[in-house]
């Protein structure tokens, strides 16, 4: 059966019949009243059959050709109201050689004197449908992969510089339920304050200089989760080399980053400990050896000396060496103490009572040079610190100021605290001899470095102080002018 035989095309339209039969498209027609079915030659062809190879009937259509699963969709479609806007149906039909394939058919309805007629055109869409399904599958695979990798994609168009397009994974990382459109500024504001300018500058640099970036930033998500993200981007450039868009990713690297930071911390700790060990070796190499060398020297001389006075003289030196040896071992002990006490718990230290105690312990030294010691701990009265460290720091700095006071004026020593931002500072100021920082600056806190011809200078106090301060994560700085005074600024926390 073909349209040419039983078709209702008539009059001027009759010449269209061969054209219809030439098409790679099947035309079908069904009359509800007569249950009559008509198929064009193309209908057989698209299904892989020769013309009239199969019987053109309702039965063939429903029982042999149309996939049973798609029957409800088809019957629903033809029985419902059909308009020009009714979308085509995608259905599976059994082809002669290739099994079930996807087809698309339009559906039209017409009521006239011959009854209610429904008709449509059928095309094979198997390849497109497969691609469609494949790409849907790929999309799902990608989505899973991105989800597993905790990886999101973002893009900024330089034409529309204030908005940023985010993939759904980004919203997930940011804990944003509804996928609101964010401005670049809002996007940046999800990162912790210190990282915002870093990201803004990186983005600006990419826009202005087509520079790619790769930075690790700390995010505070909408649910207040702190998360380390890697933010990476490359520019898209036009033929003139100008950046037209930025394509970037964000990835959750929280685990790795935190491990890395921990590792860095351990390395710093190890470096500190290693430095202390080196200092240890240094004391042994320089100081202990210097004393033992002298001791050997004096003992030898003692044996060679005959005169009584000579021997007494040499013996007095031996006594002095024994005292120095004791002092050096005391220094070693202090360095070991830095190591052992760092594991002790911090306690709240009240600064004023502690400083008063130290002052009274050094009363004789203070009075001997008629020094005036002033203090003001009103900005920070107490601090969580290792008490032994704090005591040692205060004592060392006070001793230092007393030792290097200027004989030309009344020594005035000031000790006070400052609270600035998140930090607490301890300041120690004097009007003493001062020190030429340009010459000695880097050595001031070194071990056994002395700068004045002062017989009781040991070069150990400031070394210990620096180590204690740094062991608790602070730092110490010095300002000084020769013959004007010295100011130590210690950032405690």
């Amino acid at each position: 059966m073909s349209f040419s035989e039983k078709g209702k095309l008539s009059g001027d339209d009759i010449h269209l019949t061969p054209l219809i039969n030439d098409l790679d498209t099947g035309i079908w027609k069904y009359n509800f009243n007569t249950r009559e079915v008509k198929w064009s030659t193309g209908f057989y062809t698209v299904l892989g059959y020769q013309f009239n190879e199969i019987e053109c009937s309702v039965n063939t259509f429903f029982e042999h050709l149309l996939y049973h699963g798609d029957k409800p969709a088809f019957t629903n479609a033809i029985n419902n109201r059909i308009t020009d806007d009714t979308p085509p149906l995608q259905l599976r039909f059994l082809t002669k050689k290739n099994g079930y394939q996807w087809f698309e058919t339009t559906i039209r309805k017409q009521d006239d004197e011959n009854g209610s007629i429904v008709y449509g055109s059928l095309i094979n869409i198997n390849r497109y449908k497969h691609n469609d399904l494949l790409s849907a599958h790929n999309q799902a695979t990608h989505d899973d992969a991105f989800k597993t990798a905790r990886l999101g994609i973002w893009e900024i168009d330089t034409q529309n510089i204030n908005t940023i397009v985010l993939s759904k994974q980004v919203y997930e990382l940011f804990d944003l339920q509804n996928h609101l459109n964010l401005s670049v500024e809002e996007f940046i504001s999800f990162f912790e304050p210190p990282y915002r300018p870093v990201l803004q500058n990186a983005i600006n640099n990419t826009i202005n200089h087509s520079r790619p970036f790769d930075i690790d930033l700390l995010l505070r998500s909408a649910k207040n989760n702190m998360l380390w993200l890697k933010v990476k981007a490359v520019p898209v450039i036009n033929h003139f080399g100008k950046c037209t868009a930025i394509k970037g990713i964000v990835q959750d690297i929280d685990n790795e980053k935190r491990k890395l930071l921990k590792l860095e911390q351990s390395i710093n700790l190890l470096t500190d400990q290693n430095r202390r060990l080196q200092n240890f070796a240094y004391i042994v190499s320089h100081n202990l050896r210097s004393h033992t060398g002298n001791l050997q020297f004096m003992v030898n001389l003692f044996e060679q000396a005959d005169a009584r006075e000579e021997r007494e003289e040499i013996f007095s030196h031996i006594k002095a060496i024994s005292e120095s040896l004791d002092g050096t071992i005391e220094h070693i002990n202090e360095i070991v103490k830095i190591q052992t006490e760092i594991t002790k718990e911090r306690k709240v230290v009240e600064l004023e009572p502690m400083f008063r105690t130290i002052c009274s312990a050094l009363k004789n030294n203070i009075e001997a040079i008629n020094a005036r010691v002033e203090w003001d701990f009103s900005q920070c009265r107490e601090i969580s610190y290792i008490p032994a460290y704090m005591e040692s720091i205060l004592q060392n700095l006070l001793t230092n100021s007393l030792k290097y006071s200027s004989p030309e004026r009344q020594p005035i020593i000031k000790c006070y605290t400052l609270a600035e931002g998140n930090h607490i500072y301890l300041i120690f100021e004097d009007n003493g001899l001062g020190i030429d920082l340009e010459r000695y600056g880097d050595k001031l806190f070194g071990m056994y470095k002395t700068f004045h011809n002062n017989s009781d200078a040991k070069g150990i106090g400031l070394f210990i102080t620096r180590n204690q301060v740094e062991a608790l994560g602070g730092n110490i700085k010095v300002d000084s002018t020769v013959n004007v005074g010295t100011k130590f600024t210690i950032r405690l926390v």
Partner: protein
Amino acid sequence: MIEERNPTNTWIVDDDSIYVYGLKKLISIKGINTNLSHFINGQEGINALKKANENQQLPDIILLDINMPVMDGWEFMNEFAKLKPQLGKNITVYIVTPSLDLNDIHRAKSIPEVADYIFKPVKISQLTEIFSQTQYQANERIRQYGT
């Protein structure tokens, strides 16, 4: 003997008073023919060198310590290298220190003006060798140039 008529000049630049005392004692016990001068740090040593250069009183030997207050041995060597072209005498500098630190030893060896690195405590044999060598050089000079 020539040696007795021409004692060498030895400068000790060292802040370790016990060592200096011992060295003086040892030199007198061994009867080494040298005039000893002592400076307690590098700065004093350099000042004295400048002055001695004018007065023709330059030393033959300098026994230099490394760790000293005010100006240490390294800084002294820097200053010494600057002064050297103006000095009217060939001065032999020995670094004498208790330091076994390899960094110190390498650093000392890298300074061309340093003749040798001697560990404290100084052995008597080392001391006599240093002085006899210098004495020999001084005598040679006198024999050749008559000064």
